């Protein structure tokens, strides 16, 4: 691919901003609009932009496919794991109230962890999808 100076500079400027915005949406999700689904997609958009500009191989060096697969599983397990912890603490599945010292603290911690799990899985799955389609027919 012929390097294009404008694309390189602009995307290097944009990618950190996109990632910061993704993190904002992720961790602001319990106070305002946002959450794991949206954050995960925005985060993966940053990596996909990188892959579009710098090539698929460069992007796969940042996050190799097998790491993505583990991350996708890990996110789902984090979600389900929160549920299992609440079960073990004697409450119903995904009843976050028992996670903290007070009910509000528990709910807060629970939703934060669950959304984190969702965010990791969504970002990883989006990238897996992109790599799977973009890498098809290359080898």
């Amino acid at each position: 691919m012929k390097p294009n100076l404008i694309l390189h500079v602009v995307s290097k400027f944009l990618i950190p901003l996109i990632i910061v915005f993704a993190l904002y949406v992720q961790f602001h999700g319990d106070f305002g609009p946002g959450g794991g689904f949206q954050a995960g997609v925005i985060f993966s958009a940053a990596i996909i932009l990188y892959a579009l500009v710098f090539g698929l191989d460069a992007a796969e060096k940042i996050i190799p496919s097998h790491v993505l697969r583990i991350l996708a599983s890990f996110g789902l397990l984090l979600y389900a794991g929160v549920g299992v912890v609440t079960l073990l603490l004697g409450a119903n599945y995904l009843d976050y109230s028992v996670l903290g010292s007070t009910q509000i603290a528990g709910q807060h911690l629970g939703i934060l962890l669950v959304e984190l799990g969702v965010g990791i899985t969504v970002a990883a799955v989006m990238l897996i999808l992109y790599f799977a389609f973009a890498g098809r027919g290359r080898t």
Partner: protein
Amino acid sequence: MDFFIDHYNYWVVIFLMMVGLYTVISRGNLIKKIIGLNIFQVSVFFLYISVGTVEGGAAPILTDGIELYSNPLPHVLILTAIVVGVAMTALALALVVRIKESYGTIEEDEIHELDHSL
């Protein structure tokens, strides 16, 4: 006439729904079918969200001084349905890629011919 204007959201939904379903049924190209299916699904998302609106209600984010909110439940439901839709689209596209690789075409009638000439 007021009947049409007052229910304009339903007309939009019905129009999109029919466009989508018609595309799914009438097109032989597998990718176009998926596009039709997506339009069909999006029309249902519109249906839910427009039904959830409360006249004069604000966006459902807790803010001081606001009494009336729109119903947030349809939004949550549709967020789930959107994710289901994304998964469906990804799977369908993956299937189309594999079909293209093994048949060399994504036209339904040509695939049909290839299967029956064996």
